[in-house]
């Protein structure tokens, strides 16, 4: 077992455990912090999978920007301790739900790991900013522009829904 494999399993376990934390912790801020760990572990996974640039982008946007957004929402809602009651599931229902999710998780894991995926040699600069940029500005131009349009629509939506008073200058 080489170092990379150990790192991969460590990060994978970290991602799964912290993701469980996101849905099982009681306080929303703890959930958000748990989510940071998940996202950073995923970034690490990307790096071990040779997708360096993707890993960096993951930290930059997800762990950086999106988590800040989540924290703002949590502060906006400002839930007090007495509002954070336990969800109304009994122990039996919780165990059942946990069993179902574990079953789904294991069966999906089995399905994904069973077939032998064809392994071909990676190109020299796979996953680097170089190869990504080359693809993005040659053959992937149309999805790239579509992504720009998507961002603009999101921009309009954010202003329309969150702005208290619309002005027209």
């Amino acid at each position, binding site marked *: 077992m080489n170092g990379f494999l150990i790192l991969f399993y460590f990060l994978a376990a970290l991602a799964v455990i912290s993701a469980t934390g996101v849905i099982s912790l009681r306080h929303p801020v703890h959930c958000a912090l748990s989510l940071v760990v998940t996202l950073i572990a995923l970034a690490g996974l990307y790096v071990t999978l040779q997708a360096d640039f993707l890993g960096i982008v993951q930290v930059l946007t997800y762990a950086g920007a999106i988590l800040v957004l989540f924290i703002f929402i949590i502060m906006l809602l400002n839930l007090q301790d007495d509002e954070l009651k336990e969800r109304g599931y009994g122990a039996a229902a919780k165990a059942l739900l946990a069993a179902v999710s574990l079953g789904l998780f294991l069966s999906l894991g089995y*399905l*994904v790991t*069973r*077939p*032998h*995926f*064809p392994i071909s040699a990676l190109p020299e600069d796979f996953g680097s900013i170089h190869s990504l940029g080359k*693809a993005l500005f*040659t*053959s*992937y*131009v*149309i*999805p790239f522009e*579509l*992504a720009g*349009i*998507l961002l603009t*629509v*999101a921009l*309009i*939506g954010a202003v*329309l*829904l969150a702005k208290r008073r*619309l002005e*027209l*200058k």
Partner: protein
Amino acid sequence: MRLDVLQLWQHAWPSLTLLIAAMVSLLTSVFPSRHRARITAVLAATAFLLSAQGFFHQWGLGEAKGFEFLVVDPLSNYLGALIALIGFITSIAAYPYILSQAEAIPEFFSLLLFAAFGMTTMVMTTNLLAFVLGLEIMSLSLYVLVGLRRYDPRSGEAAFKYFLLGSVATAFLLFGISFFYGSTGTLDLSRIPELLPNPEMATLFKLGALLILLGFAFKVGAVPFHFWAPDVYDGAPMPVTGFMATGVKVAAFGALIRVVEAFAPRHELPLQRWIVMLSFATMIVGNLVALRQRHLKRILAYSSIAHAGYLLLGMATLVGTGEIRAAALSPILFYLLVYSLLTLGVFSVLTILSSGGQELNDLKDLDGLSEKRPVLSAVLSVFFISLAGVPPTAGFLAKYYLFSQAIQVGLYPLAIAGILASAVSLYYYLGPIVRMYFHSHEKTWQAPGVMASLRLLLALMVAGVFYLGLFPASTLEISRRTVPIRALEAPLASPSAKLP
């Protein structure tokens, strides 16, 4: 392998027109003008009409051209023209309503154009990456449009619900697409026929296809993934509801045609069984639950669910033969046209009635409408009767072609269920008509007079209902000649798709 921009413009300009108009109408909020509302409305309507004309012109050329990520073929042009026409009718019918109900007038038309652009992208691609991007452009625009009545909590609630559940649907779709990519090594649907079945990947491939289908079922509102529709339709502004009920269905079913076309030759997929089950549940549940609704928009929501069921029945006939055939495709395309015409007709009239400042909601609000607004009542009745499938209107013929196709390929139980379900639907479509004509009025109507352009449009639409019902030959011929291209000419961008 560089994109030829000039060629792209030549073939895809009707779609790009929508995009440009969307950006320009956004700019009207930049320049100060008293006539801002009118300018954006005229701009949007002109762009929609120009785009529809362009799509139709392209259809007439009958060419098929593949770009990386985009496909321009008769199918995309037919659906694109339909989407642009839906946008055109919505933008005209919505104008008085938007003036009275919303503060974000330039944004309304801009988002309408953006959504229509997303829809055309959805039907203009066989690549799942571009499809998802188009879907999200459409969905994000619609989430915001639903929440456009910013001070109405019901509008906000509807937008929130739509956003959450729509995101779940997209998650399903993306999960399915990732399995699809993992098992085939390509994101392009048109590549599937080349790939030899690989028993080792069969389960993953099947799982991917199933999840993609479920994502679609969510978007078209098929049972059991329909729960969002009544609440969202109920809370959304009236013209937006009409746009959603028609545009989303056309775009999603258009994309589904491509998915079904790609998956149909793969016999390891029980595709027909899946679609038949979805269709069965959707027709039955949609029609039966509609009977118990008291709110006009909820009735129409369940009606749109029921019609999604009929369209899924058409999809099932598409798979039955093992490969796509024009004979099975044309009833679906004709049905999409007729359904959009009728549903938009109903919503246009309801939008007019809602533009006095308060939203029409309860079925009771229609009481005695025929005395105050006899013409509008008559027009609304025509659309409702036709939706129920009464001859000699378009709604009857559309259903007839769909069901007879199902009988021809031997889907007897499904066809019988469809016929029975649409018989039931007569009851809830007649409900509003009875209200209008046989109940005394209590409400004082404040709805303003109807614009001349809208009057003309409604007259044309009513004429269309009877024209398509009595002389369907030429329109059917158009839908018969609308076929998707089978393979792309251009080499594909995805990493060398080899056998899984």
